[in-house]
């Protein structure tokens, strides 16, 4: 039997090294991408590095302008514009899906006939393969003469994609929820809506934050569903769709610069999330569940 106390033996080192290896495999490619984004002007998208230069970053911020190093077939789309569109879309998607999912999760707390059916129907948003949704909706929309656009059709499929995720987050949170808190509110004279707003929602802050984070990042990264639904010109594409088109035509280090930029932005978003999470955690019971 193990003796108590600090006990570091070889097997725990094997685990530590293994964990380090997996972390390395997860993050090292990012590092490579960041390095390659400083590729020299005549270099390609793989090694070797032909000098160091910030020209690819310059191209990211000065889309559409050509230089003496530009050539025919170079992608001239506006990545930053697409990033702005995607961020705005993601913001709207996260609000809509969090609200709708929270209300629905509240409904699921009391068993009702057909609850299973409704739940699995929501799950279809995740289960249906993205490209089939994109194809189906595109065909319907184009047969009716409606033009797909990031503000309408993309919004529709993005919310369709994030709603089930947010619902699952709230269902998990309610599974761990302490009912006596609401009972106490009702005992003290609150009605059901007041109990919901003044007790349930604040206690659910970690789950709400998680739902917002998921809604935002899932929408920001979504490309399978919106592939044919963002509109027909470069000006209406969301960022992932634009990136996808670039990858299938020609990869340049500008794409790596973009990738480095968006990854850094993701870290910022996550830092904001963690900040609010810690703040919400401090305001609640010490061992409150933090739902991720």
């Amino acid at each position, binding site marked *: 039997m193990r003796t108590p106390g600090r006990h570091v033996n070889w097997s725990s080192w094997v685990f*530590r090294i293994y964990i380090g290896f997996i972390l390395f495999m997860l993050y090292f*490619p990012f590092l490579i991408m960041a390095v390659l984004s400083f590729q020299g002007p005549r270099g390609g998208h793989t*090694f070797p590095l032909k000098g160091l230069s910030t020209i690819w970053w310059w191209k990211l911020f000065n889309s559409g302008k050509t230089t003496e190093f530009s050539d025919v077939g170079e992608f001239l789309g506006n990545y930053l514009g697409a990033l702005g569109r995607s961020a705005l879309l993601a913001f709207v998607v996260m609000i809509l899906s969090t609200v709708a999912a929270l209300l629905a999760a509240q*409904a699921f707390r*009391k068993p009702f006939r057909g609850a299973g059916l409704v739940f699995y129907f929501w799950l279809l948003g995740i289960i249906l393969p993205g490209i089939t949704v994109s194809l189906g909706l595109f065909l319907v929309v184009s047969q009716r003469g409606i033009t797909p656009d990031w503000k309408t059709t993309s919004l*529709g499929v993005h919310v369709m994609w994030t709603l089930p995720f947010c619902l699952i987050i709230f269902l998990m949170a309610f599974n761990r929820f302490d009912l006596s808190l609401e009972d106490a509110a009702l005992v003290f004279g609150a009605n059901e809506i*007041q109990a919901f707003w003044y007790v349930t929602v604040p206690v659910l802050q970690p789950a709400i934050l998680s739902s917002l984070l998921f809604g935002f990042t899932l929408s920001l990264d979504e490309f399978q569903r919106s592939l044919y639904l963002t509109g027909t010109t470069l000006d209406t594409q969301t960022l992932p769709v634009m990136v996808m088109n670039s990858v299938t035509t020609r990869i340049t280090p500008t794409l790596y610069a973009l990738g480095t930029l968006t990854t850094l932005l993701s870290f910022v978003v996550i830092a904001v999330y963690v900040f609010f999470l810690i703040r919400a955690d401090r305001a609640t019971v010490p061992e409150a569940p933090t739902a*991720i």
Partner: protein
Amino acid sequence: MSEFPATRPPPVSMEGQRGSRSVRLVRRLRGKPGLVTILLLLPGTLWMLLFVGASLSSVLVFSFWTSGMTGLRPEYTISNYQEKLAPDSAFWRILLWTLQVVLMLLGGVILLAYPVAYGLWRVIKKAHWKSALLLLFIVPFWTSYLTRTITWIPMFGREGVVNQVVLRLGLRDEPFEFLLYSSYSMMVALWFLFIVFMIGPLYFSMQRIDEDIVSAAAVFGATPWKTFFLVVVPLTLPGLMAGALFVVVLGLSEFFTERAIGGAQNPMLAGMIQRDIDGFQFAGASAIAVLLIAITLVIVGVMLRFFDIRRI
């Protein structure tokens, strides 16, 4: 230290709020719990009905139309299905390949993720290390999938990192040619793209295991290996199934990684759909889409038989 959560303080006293909006609303809804349920479910369910309904019915209907030079024509035919399901059609080979990939993906991800989750749970003892490492493992989930995919290209190329290491270490005289744009590179990339889906659920279900059970196993003489396989694994089945569900569902709809890293020669089912769309064969693409949806639903249905997802 407050014992109850610091909820927002209600305005003055609840008793006097006769005319407030919530009181009036509650009075109207009090006797009708069914109505409340419907109202709460309405926004989300309507949205899902609209978009799920539209896309499903669309692929279903259009798969029976005919693709023509000028676009889809409403001439009903089953030839799209006949063509795809013919014994010598590429569909069957691609279906087999897709199932192979998803199976290898799932197996690889499970093998890679379990030791990570277990290590985080039992081996890493300090709480702040646990949280930090967990965050590090989950963060890639929130970065762009596309970005994570293309970062594998400079890793695997002829002049890529892996080959550089191999050459410098003198393991070989020539670089590996098969590394990039092959199924091998696609598989490796897929494993590390999808591992994030498994680590989270596994760790969280391990966290819910009562430590006393593990101690009890040790008391009864079980070795760590036996404890792992006979106690920990069965108890983490919910997390495993949740992760497996994500991996399978998203794996079946995969098309981009094969195209970007796998050489674009060996598409999976979703890739087959994409090619038909690129070739304006919308009816054919719809037919494959319907088949892919059916296959996915069958597989998910079987998986959900073993696992009640509402109990996570």
